[in-house]
């Protein structure tokens, strides 16, 4: 496979995954805030700020009153904002275009439909009452696309590179969403009922990652900070956990680099090392300083990405 | 008699922004032919990037340098050549018996077909409409004599001046300005020769300037024309000379574009500056 095309496939995977997470974050936060148990979590300003924080565009001016329609448009369909879902989809499709000969017609068609759906979505409609419609369709279409990847591509290096992108992006988005929600829980804490560890935000967090039902099956209790973080970070069986992503990344890289002996400067070696460190972590260690942990894992993920670029995408 | 030359070609390239990926192709290697022999060469650059030899589209040897990883904002190249030039009696030439026969040869279709490459005008060697009558051949004297006249005429019509033209200047402009450097002299000479059915090619090479000839301490240019019954003959219109032991040929083509000594494909933003210098030193004559 061409190095340039591999790079494009990798980013195609990342952008598709990213658009899904952004869409779901918008949806869940907006709608769960409507009947949140405390005033702050219900506040529209609070939710909009959280959304901007999640797409890495935090509003620094604490006094500024954000305009709901503007913020939603900016994150959803604004062609001039680089982090908008619209632009994520555009880039994903452009990357798919350049690898058209390698991906299946079925997958291409799904991505193409996704693209046309997004660019043709009426922006005014979206701002006024299309949020749920648009974001649920985006998550559904990315689900279809993932299904086409799984079902219509040969599970060889092309597939592995795409999945590598998806898994790295998923881990990154999980950690970003955790970060946002920790922020929110921190801001929302106050009186006894609204303690950090028992914040309503943990439920929202789980819902943002479509993991609420899974979590309830294991813990059978209202989520707390510890149980939520443990589940989303360390539980290998949760498909939306960091551990699970790292395991998958490990499998993906084995397909791309089939040498038995992993050289110390290879991606495979680095991924293995990061995963091993993770497997023997306990949630108490993480909980001691969650922000240090978040920073570390983001750095780790980005170092994998950089390594891949050096090793495979150098053209 | 033989004379030996040492030629040094240097170029300095500076780039505003750092660059990694680049290609350079140097068309600067003296060819080996009946009158000269390339004895040895060295080629190096400041970044120690390996070079390759290749043959370009017209069959001449080039150096090619392909950089992929090293990041730099300047690079120097230096080439050294040792060439032995055979001193030949200008041309083994006696007045042709039948001048018209030579002119008829030029009109012959098969001749035109065989030499079509050097009879075809290019963008740089197309005479403007008013240029056709600048110099007329006298069919009563031999082809070679006409060319000698043309050489002289070109030399007087244009005066040598740097920086009034560049490598893309067309004849229309040159004829109007009446000034230029060796490329311009050569383009004009070739165009008029071709207009008179004489195959003419642009030659790029080195000139031994110690003899006081005009050039600009870069590569020199002159022309070769095909004269029936004699073959290719070199004329240097810049110096009004027949080409002899002081000219060391690198390559020929239809015009400058085919002979450009340095071609670079550089993936960088911003400007770049390129400086060339050429030195030709004549060694002690050998027996």
């Amino acid at each position, binding site marked *: 496979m*061409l190095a340039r095309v*591999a790079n494009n496939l990798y980013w195609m995977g990342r952008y598709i995954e990213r658009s899904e997470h952004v869409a779901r974050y918008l949806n869940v936060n907006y709608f769960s805030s409507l009947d949140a148990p405390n005033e702050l979590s219900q506040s529209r300003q609070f939710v909009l700020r959280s959304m901007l924080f999640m797409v890495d565009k935090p509003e620094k001016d604490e006094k500024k009153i954000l305009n709901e329609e503007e913020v939603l448009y900016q994150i959803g369909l604004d062609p001039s904002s680089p982090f908008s879902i619209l632009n994520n989809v555009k880039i994903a499709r452009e990357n798919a275009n350049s690898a058209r000969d390698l991906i299946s017609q079925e997958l291409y068609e799904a991505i193409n439909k996704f693209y046309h759906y997004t660019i043709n979505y009426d922006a005014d409609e979206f701002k006024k009452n299309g949020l749920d419609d648009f974001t649920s369709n985006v998550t559904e279409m990315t689900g279809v696309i993932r299904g086409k990847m799984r079902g219509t591509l040969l599970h060889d290096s092309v597939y592995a590179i795409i999945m590598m992108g998806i898994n790295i992006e998923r881990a990154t988005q999980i950690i970003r969403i955790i970060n946002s929600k920790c922020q929110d829980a921190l801001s929302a804490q106050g009186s006894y009922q609204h303690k950090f560890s028992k914040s309503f935000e943990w439920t929202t967090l789980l819902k943002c990652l479509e993991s609420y039902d899974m979590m309830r099956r294991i813990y059978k209790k209202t989520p707390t900070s510890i149980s939520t973080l443990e589940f989303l970070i360390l539980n290998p069986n949760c498909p939306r956990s960091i551990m699970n992503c790292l395991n998958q990344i490990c499998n993906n890289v084995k397909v791309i680099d089939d040498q038995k002996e992993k050289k110390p400067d290879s991606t495979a070696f680095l991924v293995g090392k990061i995963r091993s460190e993770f497997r023997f972590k306990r949630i108490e260690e993480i909980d001691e300083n969650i922000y240090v942990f978040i920073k570390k894992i983001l750095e780790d993920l980005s170092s994998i990405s950089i390594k891949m670029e050096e090793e495979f995408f150098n053209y | 008699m033989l004379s030996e030359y040492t030629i040094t070609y240097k170029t300095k390239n500076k780039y505003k922004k750092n660059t990694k990926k680049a290609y350079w192709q140097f068309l600067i290697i003296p060819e080996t032919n009946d009158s000269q022999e390339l004895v040895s060469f060295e080629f190096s650059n400041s970044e120690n990037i390996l070079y390759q030899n290749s043959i370009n589209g017209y069959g001449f040897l080039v150096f090619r340098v392909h950089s992929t990883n090293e990041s730099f904002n300047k690079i120097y190249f230096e080439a050294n050549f040792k060439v032995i030039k055979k001193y030949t009696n200008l041309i083994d030439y006696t007045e042709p018996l039948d001048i018209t026969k030579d002119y008829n040869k030029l009109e012959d279709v098969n001749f035109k077909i065989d030499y079509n490459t050097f009879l075809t005008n290019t963008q740089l060697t197309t005479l403007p409409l008013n240029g056709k009558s600048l110099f007329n051949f006298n069919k009563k004297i031999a082809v070679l004599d006409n060319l000698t006249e043309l050489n002289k005429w070109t030399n007087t019509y244009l005066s040598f001046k740097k920086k009034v033209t560049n490598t893309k200047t067309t004849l229309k402009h040159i004829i109007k300005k009446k000034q230029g450097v060796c490329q311009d002299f050569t383009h004009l000479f070739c165009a008029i020769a071709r207009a008179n059915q004489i195959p003419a090619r642009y030659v790029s090479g080195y000139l031994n300037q110690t003899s006081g000839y005009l050039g600009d301490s870069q590569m020199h240019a002159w022309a070769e024309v095909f004269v029936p019954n004699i073959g290719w003959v070199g004329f240097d219109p810049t110096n009004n000379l027949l080409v002899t032991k002081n000219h060391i040929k690198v390559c020929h083509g239809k015009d400058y574009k085919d002979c450009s000594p340095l*071609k670079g494909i550089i993936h960088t933003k911003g400007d770049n500056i390129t400086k060339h210098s050429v030195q030709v030193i004549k060694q002690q004559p050998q027996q």
Partner: protein
Amino acid sequence: MTNISNNLFSSYVKNEELYDEIYDSNGDIKDVYKKLFSLYGEHSLTNFVKLNSKAKASFFNQGITFQVYNKKATQEEIFPFDLFPRIINPEEWDIIEKGSIQRSKALNLFLWDVYHEKNIIKDGIVPIDLITSSANYLHQMENLDPPGGIYNHVSGIDIIKHKDGKFYVLEDNIRCPSGVSYVICNRTALKRALFGVFNHYQTYSVTNYAENFLELLETAKPNGVDIPNSVVITPGIYNSAYYEHSYLAKTMGIELVEGRDLFVENDFVYMKTIKGPLKVDIIYRRVDDLYIDPLEFNPESVLGVPGLFAAYKKGNVTLANAPGTGVADDKAVYTYMPEIIKYYLKEEPILNNVKTYHCSRPKDLEYVLEHTHELVIKPVDESGGYGISIGNKLSKKELKKVKKEVKENPRKYVAQPIMSLSVHPTYIEETNSFEQRHIDLRTFTVLGKEKEFVLKGGLTRVALRKGNLIVNSSQGGGSKDTWVLKK
């Protein structure tokens, strides 16, 4: 039955002046079309409209589109497709196929000759200006032997049927002829929409193009290569024919590369893969001559590969089509095609040539200037239907302008009588009915070493504007599925 009486075709008007493909010489509807009419007649007009928009959506979703640039934004549009197929009977196809092969072979021999001994000029069959004043003659190709001796691996020959019922060639395209992917997509779309119809006909498949093409391409591999590594090179995703490039690479099972994916080391070509460099032996190029190598041709080109031409000259890589083939699809060369075929193959031309006037010849120029209103004036070195003037469609002012232009640059133009392209029933959305529209046929011929292949079908292009004779997609043309019936 001369009139058509069913739901779909009730308003079909036959213009007696035109040669309509569906009627035989007695003015009766041909049997093959009769059956087709009755099969199509089973659909109501509403139903047909539905099928038509479904087929369009399918093209759109598959991304078989090209970019249209207008003032506001770039838009994607599909290449218009007509659901009513053109049928070519076995006898007619025989002529087309043999004629296409004959022409392609003659062009290949012509190219070898003009880049080597030039005997055809020495023997006085064609004038020397064909090479000396052609912008597409590449001097770098002189005395270079392309691997396998093949120049025009793929030839796209545009054929029409005139009023007289005979086939004429309008143009030979041997640089980078495009359109073959549409042949296959049209078939797929028609099969999806009207699958029932196919049961009633024995039609040749068109999906075998890619494998045949690759097989023949590989016969012209460089010397010393055992199993060649082939690639398709494209200018990139913004090129209007990008879909076709990716389609061909995919169906041939080879990599689709851009110039930046390749590099040349010691006169061998390599591509950059995730596992390091991999040698490339055959390049099916969809990048124009002057852009393939910035060190040898246009130095501004970012689409090419520095050093590629030197690798080619050394015989280390095959380029298909060879650089410099453009000299032979010049419209001035076209006019000598009958002589060229006779000269190299000692055969009579199978397909007719349209009578052509060379404006460079004083006598022809005189005729052209007097009869401009009844001629088609074409620039010799343009393709894609650009720069063509059709005499009887010009206003007085335009006529004057054209004459002036021809007079000033006679070498640049040729003129031909206005050929009346045959017509075919075509569904027209604006009127919601079938109408006669002009069509042509582009055949795709592949030459290999001692073997050749013609795609049994080809691209029927249709001029969708009423009365329009120019079928190129850039000029508002569409296309139809083309059925070649088995004997």
